[in-house]
């Protein structure tokens, strides 16, 4: 059985034929909003591309227009190479979910789709997997062969130890010296205060951060009933509860955690996107890109 992350063909096909709005949104995110800080400073010319509505007219190549009567935009090296790093949580809790649709599997698919989008438009994309520490780190690259390496690295990731988001993000902040985009895919089952501090550090290091929180529907609904023994996936003690009678308390604790996380992300300028593993991946992508 192949362990290559499941970027379903239909997802790729649908991504490839994204509607104009979605395509604009992608390009707005990746080209418009992450404009190179080196713009106008001895930037090396790379190539031309077709003008599209919304392009900055300052980059229109007037010489080409004069000679060929075609609207061409000049492209420079730094502007076309957004440096994105996908940070994928491979802790034990990410292994939760029904067979074939665990949170980790959903996260891999999401990461593969995002990576594909970026490589397809010549952006650089890297990968970091972690649990208690960074397990694998691939620097950003923009070629399809690099993308395949990313897929291969993702396929090797397995649910492992406890979740320790804060130290891992601090370590990554040290490694990511150039301005870029961090796509953090995790369930965020960690201390929300430390997590927010780590996100702020990333922001301080001039990284634009987007947090994709992957949740199983049962973690939201708590559908158990009767006496139940809960066995943790990260070596927590086993707990026996009457599920009916703690449902409200659980939901309350969970809601408080989510509220803290949301507020922290807002304060740190991090966009939080909550994804359920029973959602369609395309829907998630579309929602994420549109929200930008």
């Amino acid at each position, binding site marked *: 059985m192949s362990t290559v992350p499941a970027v379903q063909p239909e997802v790729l096909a649908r991504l490839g034929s994204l509607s104009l709005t979605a395509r604009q949104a992608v390009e707005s995110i990746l080209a418009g909003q992450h404009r190179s800080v080196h713009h106008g400073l001895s930037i090396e010319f790379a190539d031309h591309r077709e003008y599209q509505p919304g392009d900055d007219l300052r980059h229109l190549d007037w010489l080409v227009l004069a000679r060929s009567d075609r609207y061409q935009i000049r492209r420079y090296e730094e502007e076309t190479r957004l440096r994105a790093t996908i940070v994928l949580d491979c802790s*034990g*809790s*990410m*292994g*939760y979910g029904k067979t074939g649709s665990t*949170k980790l599997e959903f996260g891999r698919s999401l990461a593969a789709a995002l990576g594909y989008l970026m490589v397809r438009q010549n952006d650089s994309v890297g990968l970091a997997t972690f649990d208690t520490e960074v397990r694998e780190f691939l620097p950003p690259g923009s070629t399809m062969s690099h993308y395949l390496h990313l897929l291969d690295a993702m396929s090797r990731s397995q649910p492992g130890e406890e979740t320790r988001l804060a130290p891992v993000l601090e370590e990554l902040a040290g490694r990511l010296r150039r301005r870029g985009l961090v796509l953090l895919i995790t*369930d965020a*089952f960690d201390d929300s205060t430390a997590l927010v501090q780590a996100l702020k550090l990333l922001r301080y290091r001039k990284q634009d951060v987007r947090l994709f929180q992957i949740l*199983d529907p049962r*973690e939201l609904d708590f559908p*158990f009933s009767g*006496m*139940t*023994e*809960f*066995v*943790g*996936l*990260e*070596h*927590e*003690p*086993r*707990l*026996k*509860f*009457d599920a*009916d*009678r*703690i*449902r*409200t*308390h*659980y939901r*309350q*604790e*969970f809601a408080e*955690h989510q509220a803290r996380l949301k507020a922290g992300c807002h304060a740190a300028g991090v966009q939080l996107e909550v994804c359920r593993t029973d959602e369609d991946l395309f829907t998630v992508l579309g929602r994420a890109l549109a929200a930008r």
Partner: protein
Amino acid sequence: MEFLTPILFGGLALVSAPILLHLLHRRNIKPVDWAAMRFLIEMMTRKRRRLLLNELLLLLVRMAIIACIALAMVRPALKHAADGASGAGIVRHGPTAAVLLLDDCLSTQAGRAQSSFENMKRLAVAYLGTLRAGDEVSVVRMSQVGQAVADPGFDLEAIKAGVLAARPSFVASDVPGLLEAGLGQLKHHANPGAELILVTDGMGNGWRFGEISRWEELRRRLRGPASAAAGTKEHPRLLVLCPETPETMRNIAITAVTPDRSILTSGMESSFKVSLKSHGNTVATSVPVQFLVDGRAVGQKAVALPPDGEGEALFTHTFAEPGSYALEARLVDNHDFLGADDQRALAIQVEPGLPVLLVDGNERAGLRSKLGFLRYALDPGGPGGSPFKVTTVSLAQFAPSLLANYRVVVLGDVRALEPATVDALERYVVGGGGLLVGLGPEINPGLINRAWSRGGEGFFPAALGNATSPPKGVRPAGMNSTHPAFAGFGAQAEGAWKSAAVKSYFGLAPEAGQRGDLEVVLKYDNGDPMVLERRRGLGLVALVTTSLNADWNDLPLQPAYVPLVRGLVGRLGSFIMPPRNLLPGEPIIYAQVAEPGHPITGEDQAGKPLPLVAGGWEGRDAFLSEALPTPGIYLLRDPKVPKPIRFVVAASPGESQLQPVTEHDLTQAVEPGTPLYRRGDQVTAALATASRNSVEIWKWLLAGAIGFIFLETWMTRRAAAGAAMGAVVGEPEKA
């Protein structure tokens, strides 16, 4: 504090049910993987104590619910005062358990304008009027003793209606038996107060004062332990309700219809004695008695009866053909206090002759054989015939296959039998056959005890000792002329054997005297048994301990020999099983198998169809009716039998004696001072204001249980709503 149904104390064990359920639940928990453990851990860390406390409270509330319900079922009652006495001296212990003992025997039908039974019912209803809601009542009728009785009821109006609708039965009264049944029924009651109310017509026959040991046991049970208060389950209060009756009530009854012999044969004239009894001090100079055979009058005679005296009328009849007959005697135009005993019937079976098989232990013929005298005594030959159809076989000719054709078998000084023949004889007797065994010089006691008696398991009635030959000989003595076998002797029984001499006989082994089913019907003058009887299954075996010929005695030369052996053989062959003369309340049993397409049907005395069901009786297929409460003649039609088979239900003649028990006996029979009430107003005055000294608290307990249920519901909902409480069912466990 007392508990009315302490047997239900075991229900308190259910209090542990919530704990057991909790523990069982813990065993059956299935584990699930869970990622978001940190939220559960945080929740537990913050609310653990509160959750545990609430869980414990919930557990206690649930246990309290069960405890309240279990205690309510035990029905505790608080005694709020010492036993005090009301004006009438009756103290009831809280709610009363009353067992109404209604003696609805035949004598209660007696009376002129109103029967005694109607007056008894009024007294019973007056008593029921002194009870109140919560009191429970059982009604036990004399005719129901021995049958299942309905559970106690609380609907006093329905019970009153049931009493008023009751009709007297035809059963014989048995007051001690009715009281015993009442004590048994009290066990089905739950209320603390206990009263037995004997409603009787006060006739003496049913009280059975002669059964002293039975009355002593009854008194012991009624009094209970010395510490028991009167009117409680341990010492039930007995009240006697007996309507006033005339000092004596004149009554003439037919007490019996008796044939003159055990075996009735067709074509031979038979005599029947109709016995009458006059109760009361009135002289009846001419009481007309009609005699009927199968409903057809065949004679009428007038009988003179002295005051409190007896009389009889003799009728003769010749039955043209064998079969089942019903004889009936009726008093014509008799107007006394009790009409139910003015007729009496008897079912008889007329045979062409009683088939008797003689097995002779000696090959010699005539009077020199072992049973030669007996054969001539049973069937001397000559004109007129004999009721006994006798066949003699030698020991060598005797085969088990012969048994099916004879009602009686006689063994005369037979030394030994083949084992297969012994088995066949045992089956023959158990199945209803009659067997007469005569001994003699050929008998080996050891062999007999080993093969025929077998410690009481075989057909032989008793283990034998050695042969005895007293120097001066012995002779029969002590003949009881009331025994059916000796009925033919009549008044001459006493001197019948004065010139007889028995030289030798066998004594019985010592262990034989310990058998309770052995009846000595004739003894020698030295006290040793001469003739014994023992029932074996459905049949009867008689043993003559000396010879039936002249080897050891001169009995065959005595005139009494003929009635002796005819009586014995006739008795052995006279039993028709199952019986056809029944008492009220007994069912008809007809032990036959219906052929396909030829059903066996029944009719009651009014000609209506009598339902019969197929069943079994003593291991045989049989048809059975329901219990028949009413005297009369019932018919069964079997296509295999030419004449209908007649069954007779006849009441006990003892009920005809309408002699009231004295008031002294009514109040002293159980214990001195037993309250006796003869009128309804006396009952009401004595009991309607009786005080009650305890109060049940089961209602409060049930109210408490309902309150705890509401509390439990509130706590559960509150926990589920998550307002403040949760439930930690178990401590966290390390993986």
